[in-house]
């Protein structure tokens, strides 16, 4: 009826593929910018050019993070049907792209504010999401400290003259840390509100992409500002606090993963754990940049490579993990009979493959990140040998706890997947066409992860330009086929190990063809496999969640002196109550006396006051 109808663009054909093709275009453009090392391109305000402010700036670091963002966005837009037609998905994607591209601080703060406002759409009030949503706002607000001094652009911040002149560097760095850690999810990890972003009620799909976009933005801001800011501030203690906070948040998230039962929350807590692990890399890199004092450091190259590899593995690996969890939840929890059983088995197998890819098992991608991170610890310059080595041992102890929790967490994820799968009867099933798309995107993520785990040099080649821009000191040591910490020291060839692995497997399977298939196996022990297995009873006893009550009982046993102290307090309180009762019996008596001799008491008080003044004099 109206001149401008509501569903004006709804009936246009192929519009629902617009987001997907847009993501593909962005991916290709960022890839070109990385490969050909496009120089920094900036767009100033069209009619405010006299201010000389760069409105949007594309340099190599932002191109690298755009590559990560678009690669995760393509996976999501391909798989989830809702994402391609969802308005919020498009707006958030465009907003996060603009945050990465901004060159101006006003613009950045406005964009991040809109991002947080859009985010508030998903927040759940019951799980104390209020605090979680307030913290990033506080961080953004504290960035306004910068405007106290002068007007700055994002790119100006990188120049050392400006940084040293700024008086509030400590406050600014704390603000950045709070802002970025809330985006990564570490501050949410401290609380029990992992589930603050609820599943969408209106549709069957879920908003896992929010986590990934936020992590991309958080890592971008950390890699752009935290590292540069710390190099100027000369504050190692703040860096150590940052690392310790990240590790504690990660350990807390791992603990949550073992106690939570829901699959999506378990995967999200593992995501937080991985992010916290990468904060260690960032902190070590910033300490190195402080200690080197703009000198030539060969380790910086190695460290930046490890950081970018870790971010790529984290983002793309966990976007596939989120898609898999979404697939299971969407197809089983909501539509139980609309799911072929072969797909279920496929999802189980894919989860197993993800465990091998993302947890720190050699020779896959998670292990390369761990290897690079641990070798970066040897890069600490020995200004004071004992102190640095003590710090390293502490960090390694934290890493051990993290890896322990991570492995147990992934195993508990597998157990919960199996629980879900065996609960549902999936005999009557029909094929859904949307599953094919989600399967395509998941396989795409797997191919990327596998290629990274075999040849990590692909990503090194991509990130070389960004490292050049950041540090200006690059050694071409890492190639596609191998990478080393520095010359003549420890090397790592993931492809060689995979080659040996594959060779052994190939020999094994070739030899297995020689044997006849139908022949029964005559064994000295005479044991045979029981074919009938009751699968449902498997998972009753097998889970790694340490019971909350058991943990509380253990704490009560260990901290029994507190309980005893509490007992003493109770006794003291009883004594106090008895005394109070005793004195309250005489309350009425005292009140009567006071009423009668009110004037006398006043006189006595006056006399005593005068006397005291005389004595003082």
């Amino acid at each position, binding site marked *: 009826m109206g001149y401008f109808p509501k569903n004006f663009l709804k009936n246009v054909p192929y519009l629902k593929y617009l987001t997907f093709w847009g993501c593909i275009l962005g991916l290709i453009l960022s890839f070109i910018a990385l490969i050909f090392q496009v120089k920094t391109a900036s767009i100033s305000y069209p009619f405010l050019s006299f201010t000389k402010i760069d409105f949007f700036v594309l340099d190599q670091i932002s191109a690298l993070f755009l590559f990560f963002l678009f690669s995760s966005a393509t996976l999501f837009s391909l798989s989830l049907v809702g994402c391609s037609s969802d308005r919020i998905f498009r707006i958030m994607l465009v907003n996060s792209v603009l945050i990465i591209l901004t060159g101006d601080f006003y613009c950045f703060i406005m964009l991040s504010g809109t991002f947080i406002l859009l985010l508030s759409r998903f927040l759940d009030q019951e799980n104390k999401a209020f605090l979680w949503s307030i913290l990033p706002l506080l961080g953004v607000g504290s960035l306004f400290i910068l405007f106290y001094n002068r007007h700055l652009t994002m790119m100006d911040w990188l120049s050392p003259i400006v940084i040293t002149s700024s008086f509030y560097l400590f406050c600014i760095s704390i603000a950045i840390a709070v802002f970025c850690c809330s985006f990564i999810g570490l501050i949410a990890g401290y609380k029990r509100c992992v589930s603050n972003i609820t599943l969408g009620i209106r549709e069957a799909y879920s908003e896992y992409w929010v986590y990934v976009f936020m992590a991309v933005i958080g890592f971008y801001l950390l890699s752009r500002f935290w590292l540069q800011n710390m190099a100027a501030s000369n504050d190692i203690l703040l860096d150590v606090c940052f690392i310790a906070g990240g590790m504690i948040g990660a350990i807390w998230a791992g603990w949550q993963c073992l106690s939570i039962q829901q699959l999506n929350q378990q995967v999200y807590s593992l995501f937080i754990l991985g992010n916290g692990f990468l904060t260690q890399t960032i902190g070590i890199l910033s300490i190195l940049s402080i200690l080197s004092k703009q000198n030539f450091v060969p380790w910086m190259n190695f460290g930046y490579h490890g950081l970018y590899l870790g971010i790529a593995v984290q983002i793309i690996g966990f976007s596939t993990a989120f898609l898999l969890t979404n697939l299971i939840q969407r197809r089983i929890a909501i539509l139980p009979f609309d799911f072929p059983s072969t797909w279920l088995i496929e999802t189980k197998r894919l989860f197993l493959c993800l465990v091998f890819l993302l947890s720190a098992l050699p020779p896959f991608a998670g292990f390369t990140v761990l290897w690079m991170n641990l070798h970066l610890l040897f890069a600490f310059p020995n200004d004071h040998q004992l102190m640095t080595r003590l710090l390293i*041992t502490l960090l390694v102890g934290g890493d051990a706890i993290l890896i322990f929790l991570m492995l147990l967490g992934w195993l508990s994820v597998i157990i919960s997947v199996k629980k879900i799968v065996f609960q549902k009867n999936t005999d009557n099933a029909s094929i859904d066409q949307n599953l094919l798309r989600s399967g395509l995107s998941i396989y795409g993520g797997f191919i990327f992860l596998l290629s990274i785990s075999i040849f990590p040099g692909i990503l090194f080649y991509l990130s070389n330009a960004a490292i050049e821009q950041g540090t200006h000191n690059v050694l071409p040591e890492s190639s596609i086929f191998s990478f080393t910490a520095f010359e003549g020291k420890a090397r790592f060839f993931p492809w060689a190990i995979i080659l040996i692995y594959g060779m052994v497997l190939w020999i094994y399977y070739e030899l297995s063809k020689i044997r006849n298939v139908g022949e029964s196996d005559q064994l000295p022990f005479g044991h045979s496999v029981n074919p009938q297995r009751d699968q449902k009873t498997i998972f009753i006893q097998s889970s790694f969640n340490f019971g909350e009550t058991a943990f509380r009982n253990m704490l009560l046993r260990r901290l029994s002196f507190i309980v005893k102290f509490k007992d003493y307090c109770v006794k003291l309180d009883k004594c106090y109550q008895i005394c109070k009762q005793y004195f309250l019996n005489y309350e009425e008596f005292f009140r009567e006396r006071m009423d009668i001799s009110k004037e006398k008491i006043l006189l006595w008080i006056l006399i005593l006051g005068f006397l005291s003044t005389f004595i003082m004099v």
Partner: protein
Amino acid sequence: MFWLAIFVLTLIHWGMLLYGASWVMWLENCFEAKIQGLSRPPYKYYKTQLRMVNIHRFSSFSIHTFPYKDYVIIALCGNIVAAALIPSFTRGMLTGYLSDFLLITGLLFTSFLTFFLLSLKDTYSFSRKHIQNLLFDRLLFLPVIFFIFIIIGYTTEETSLDGLVAYFHRMGNISIIAYTPLVIAACALLMLVWDMPDYKDMEGKDCFGGSDHGLMLYINDLQFMVWLSLIAVLIWPQSLADPSINGGDMLSWLRSLPFGLIAWIGKIIALCFILALFRSFLFLPSTAYRSGIAMILSFLAIIVHFSGLNGGE
């Protein structure tokens, strides 16, 4: 010629580890029985195990006896690759560049996880609970492994075992204080190797019988072998031959090879005897005690390393 010799030696080393694994386990059991006054374990048993472990039995296993072969084969491949990477009697093998301590231990750790995944497939709760406890106990050793990694890094400024041997060859005769952290770390690893043949108890229970049992025993033996040779490298790194000694002279390297072989065999036998003594006389039923002792030992190694450093510069 040099490269051919290195290639042949690598193959010999690999085959030696793969074939000798069961024999070493048998030797250890013999020592244990001798100390405890029991009768020697029948060699026929091990012979049948070995026969089952041969490649044809593997193939039969893969096809029809056991439906969940992939997990076991991943564990087996991990152990075989670890056996290839670790230096036994000489350094500078073809896989010498890959002999990173973390990589080898990670490859060994895959088998625990894969056995846990395997146990999830089975019905009865006994073996699963057993393997779950085993996995949990093994994961408690992760800090020990990381600390040993750090000790190797501190002493030699790199973490590959090949580089460790080369470092001590380069240094020549140095004071004992440089060796002690590594020896203490090796003692910490002995605590891990303590209860290695745990899958022996699972015979006849929960579908872990037959050739599956044989394969699992073989994986266990191989793992035992790799751990032992890891300890052997840490205890006495200079006993290994070095091809780059005397400016890459081939003859001097070939002359030092037999001693390396003898030293390796001697170290393995001594370690077996020590383990038999431990198992006979030290009663530590729970693995938590062992993990605690290993943790303390690895930390002690770091403290000993710190005692050699000066606080000032």
